[in-house]
């Protein structure tokens, strides 16, 4: 048990060799899937990022909201921006602001940032999740594929009111 034989660098046996090869091939397949999907797949992790101060971001979002507001829901403005435009979502303790009304089948450039701590953007029941950091404007090019009412919940702990942080996202035909 304790000290191995002096010579332990014996050649691998048949099953060991076969398994090593199978496992290696599998690992290479795992590695290859990501660039393949990056080129061919239609769901990829957004990479476009800008730095932005909370102050700047709040101003952008306020201007955006003022320009396209169509309604108010539970005190939060509902905003219907033109198809294919840049749309802005702001996360703060403990609210998503504003509520976006999007068109099905249309690509948008969705900007997300936080003006205080980290938050988690979690779109349900689509179950798409992105990290939201203060100081970074994260741009996701998204295309809703179905109409309906969706929820946005926060899934990064953002202090004691974390579980209150929820909102809606509306997709129309």
């Amino acid at each position, binding site marked *: 048990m304790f000290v191995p*034989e002096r010579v*332990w660098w014996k050649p691998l046996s048949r099953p060991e060799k076969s398994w090593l090869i199978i496992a290696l091939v599998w690992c290479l397949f795992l590695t290859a899937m990501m660039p393949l999907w990056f080129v061919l797949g239609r769901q990829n992790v957004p990479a476009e*990022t800008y730095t932005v101060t909370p102050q700047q971001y709040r101003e952008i979002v306020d201007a955006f909201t003022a320009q396209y507001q169509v309604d108010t829901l539970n005190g939060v403005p509902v905003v219907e921006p033109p198809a294919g435009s840049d749309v802005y979502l702001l996360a703060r303790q403990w609210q998503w602001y504003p509520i976006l009304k999007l068109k099905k089948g249309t690509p948008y450039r969705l900007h997300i940032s936080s003006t205080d701590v980290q938050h988690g953007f979690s779109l349900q029941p689509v179950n798409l999740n992105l990290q939201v950091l203060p100081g970074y404007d994260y741009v996701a090019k998204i295309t809703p594929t179905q109409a309906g009412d969706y929820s946005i919940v926060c899934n990064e702990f953002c202090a004691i009111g974390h*579980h209150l942080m929820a909102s809606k996202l509306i997709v129309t035909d």
Partner: protein
Amino acid sequence: MAVATLPRSQAKAEFRTCPVTFLKVDLAAERLIIANAVAAVVFLLIGGLYALLIALTRWQAVHLLNATWFYRLLTAHGFNMLVAWMVFFEVAGLYFGSAIMLNARMVKPRLAWLGFILMAVGAVMFNVIVLMGKGDVMFTAYVPLKAHPLFYLGFILFAVGALIGVGLFFANLVMAKREKTYEGSVPLVTFGLATAAILAVYTLVAGALALVPALLWSLNIIPSVDPTYYRNMFWAFGHPAQQVNLAAMVSIWYMLASFTVGATPLNEKFSRLAFVLYILFINLGSAHHLLVDPGPGFAWKATNTSYAMYLAVLGSLIHAFSIPAAIEVAQRRKGFTKGAFDWLRKGPWREPGFSSLVISMVLFGWVGGVTGVVIGTEQINMLAHNTLRLPGHFHATVVSGTTLAFMGATYYLIPLIFRRELRLKKWASWQPYVFGSGMLLVSIGMIAAGLQGVPRRHWDITFAGSPFSISIPAAAQISLALFGVGALIAITGGIMYLTVVLVSVFGGKRREAHRLTLVMSDANPLVEYALPNKDKEAEGKLAPQGAFILVLAFLIFMATYYLTNWWLLGRTWLIR
């Protein structure tokens, strides 16, 4: 470490000779091992109490704690379990694997005590400050959520103490080599622990790079800490730290396999290669915590998550074959050669070391490993990030796998190190099954809830206090109930473990173990099982075909789950 200045003589160390292994046991090392192991168990006890309370809160139908205490105890649970219990046990393991297994003496025991005290003070400080409500930030403490300075200081003190332990492990190895206390290569278990220790150095340095700036910021000495920098450094600490746990656990797997059925690695090269893969390729494992963060692009994320992970995954796949194969061959030597699985059926299933080994491997690999590879895939992570699938994954790895392996090992170390007879053997025999089945439900319940979008670290998925009604599917409630029932079973298993340990250590008959014995019988596997069998005909019957079938089945299972997740991803909104 100023190894060169260490005294060469053994004059100062006091030894006893272990009647089991005929190894010399340095009494200083033995006391240190006992202290660290006891501290580990104490924190497991505290963390387990918190686990009960937070689990009964997440079980939505029970919903025990209020929000504040849920988040508070979750913060403390994460730290006590993942950091305190694991690392104290690992330090005990490092001293065992160096001083005891190499027949050597403990270098600088006073320094080791200093390390122990730093760890203990740090862990207590952390708990006190969190319970006082000054650190409701989760143990990850993502900036700019701010905690009291003592929160970070406690963490840092603990890490410094652990680093001392790791340094002394290396010093022990060097000293043993120099004093020629052993011949040939170090044993595989020590080799695995050395892997863990090398990773630990890297890890703890990264931890300092995250936590020291956070401490200075909480003291208003520096104005801010960049959240991406912090996340990168925190996970450069947090994830490779899991590889430390992994390497320690695999070492213990080899040890349990040898204790309980007399298995020896079929090919040391194969097994050692796997450990080397861990050291080389896990470094930027932190990348897979940042897969859906703003900042880094595809190339950085995919490269680090793949090379860092998949070659380390290869290491795990190697162990996944080599350990079952070693068990199979050992069993076949004993004559269980019928069919492909007779060896497994005839295993010593009542022996806790054996059952905890098997359950630990199955839950670690089939549940934890598979889900980990899947959610660590760059694009698929969008479906999983910060959902309950994450805790589901690591309650299969570090909890079902590592914790259960550590528990199994304890039953053999109590007679060896504490020199007490193990009490409540029946309980010990059942304990791995209770804990394992509970943890299986916990993991599956969490994973199923996460697949339905249930967030992690969340007090109320009914969103009762929120102005918006959120429809989490009703089936998620069933998953959470499954999880809750599992939690109660697992905690029962945890209590059984703690009871066996405490009753044995404080009430077991003090005696010299005359030889290494199994828990459930008097056999000494090391001697009685090691029947050499050079017979040509026997050779054919000794081939590990069963283990080969098992790993192939595992691969098919993994491929199925992996491809299903790509399919799920392909059905969601388009995103780029």
